[in-house]
């Protein structure tokens, strides 16, 4: 039996995982939300303590391929910032980030009365992460002369009094690539800017050392981090809904790993 199982067509495993992920959405199953991890709680608490009117900048450093993990984070963070009457600024170090920023901020602002240019702004994409991050530390207007709609910064009420990192309460990098390291090196380390990071789960283990050394305030780790932030802000979004499938699929994969190992050793013993 084990020998036959070791030769199982892997498409059966694909089908099983697909069913496990899909069925909770069809039947609207929902597991109770888990506890909020300390890195998520730390970021929430920091945002919660910022005085109203403080500028918060979110850098959209990802593309549509990472949307399932990072877009719910962006929406949850933006919703929280707008609810707290913080000034919400978006920039992008990836070309597709401009569109994703617009989508996230528009969704978060629905029903809050927040207006583009007044309570939130999308400054758009600039190439060259290094020069952008360093430039923001000296003079924002030298990096961004206008927002993504070509409205000059001096005509945007939200930008009044915002010149550099000195005026920004928190920068959050939502990343699917190498940009968190750049933000830590150039914004946090050089200018002392308070920094939070939301990243895909693949790269989370590279980010945790910065958390340990207190170079970042908090970290949102993949879909789980997004769901935790939705939970702590009392909002049920797509990340929270996805966690039921995620949890069941994890159990299935643990089961597959165990069965695979038992099968491997059992069939090896038979060969001997």
């Amino acid at each position, binding site marked *: 039996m084990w020998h036959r199982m070791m030769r199982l067509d892997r498409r059966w495993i694909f089908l099983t995982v697909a069913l496990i992920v899909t069925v909770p*959405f069809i039947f609207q199953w929902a597991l109770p939300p888990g506890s909020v991890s300390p890195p998520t709680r730390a970021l929430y608490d920091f945002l919660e303590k910022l005085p109203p009117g403080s500028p918060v900048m979110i850098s959209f450093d990802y593309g549509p391929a990472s949307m399932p993990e990072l877009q719910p984070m962006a929406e949850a963070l933006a919703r929280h910032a707008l609810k707290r009457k913080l000034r919400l600024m978006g920039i992008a170090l990836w*070309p*597709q980030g401009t569109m994703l920023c617009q989508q996230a901020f528009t*969704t978060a602002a629905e029903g809050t009365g927040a207006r583009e240019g007044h309570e939130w702004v999308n400054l758009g*994409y600039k190439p060259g992460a290094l020069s952008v991050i360093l430039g923001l530390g000296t003079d924002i207007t030298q990096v961004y002369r206008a927002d993504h709609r070509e409205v000059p910064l001096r005509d945007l009420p939200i930008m009044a009094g915002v010149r550099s990192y000195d005026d920004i309460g928190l920068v959050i990098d939502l990343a699917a690539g190498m940009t968190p390291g750049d933000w830590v090196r150039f914004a946090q380390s050089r200018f002392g800017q308070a920094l939070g990071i939301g990243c*895909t789960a693949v790269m989370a283990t590279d980010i945790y050392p910065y958390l340990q050394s207190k170079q970042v305030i908090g970290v949102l780790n*993949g879909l789980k981090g997004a769901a935790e932030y939705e939970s702590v802000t009392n909002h*049920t979004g797509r990340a929270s809904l996805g966690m039921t499938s995620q949890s069941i699929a994890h159990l299935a*994969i643990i089961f597959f790993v165990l069965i695979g190992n038992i099968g491997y050793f059992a069939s090896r013993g038979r060969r001997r």
Partner: protein
Amino acid sequence: MPDAVPAPDALPPLAQLLGLWVAAFLTLAIFSFLYGDNPLYKLAEHIFVGVSAGYGVVIVYYEAFLSDLINPLFRPEKASLDHPNYWLLIPGILGLMILGRFIPRYDWLSRWPIAFVIGLGAGATIPSTMQADIIIQLRETIAPLWAPAPGQSLALAAWVSFSRLVLAAGVICTLSYFYFSLPHRGALALTSRVGVGFLMVAFGAGFGNTVMARLSLLIGRVQFIRYDWWPTVGPLLRRILDHF
């Protein structure tokens, strides 16, 4: 239910509807690769590469080339400037020199801007990397093992101390595994073996996170199919049937 779920029988505007159906078709075409390589998968793959590249070019043209170079030089009023900024001619010319790569006779021209970029990058990155990735990380690794914060409970202080001990042991043992100037015998064999254990734990954590990330991508697509595309199927079919 998430906020983005459309109401039953409601159809989005035609352009959005078309986008939803194209996206659903491309999603299923990509997933068809799980059964085996096929022309639908190839089609979706090529569309993805082409659209990504095209979108990137358009965004860079409008949000960088036009707004950072052309407007400040030739249309200063659009760049919120009183006068043209002629200093931008220098990076503009350096940028043009990069294109020398395409003409074998003049490809040497591209070395200057590349040298500039490498010099700038190295000059800015090396000190910052030393500070952020080495000095601060080292400082946190060699933090005192027992240093309770004011007002901290004994249990929490003990836990923090234990965490620091594990961190220090992990760093020392892992480094000893990569120490090749002595044979791994005796104490060095023990520490390097423990170091391998720490490495395995790190790889396991990385793999676990990778599984979570890949499942999240699948969940994202399933949510799109379930909450964005599927609700349009019934109303659209009804409208088509009513039409006939």
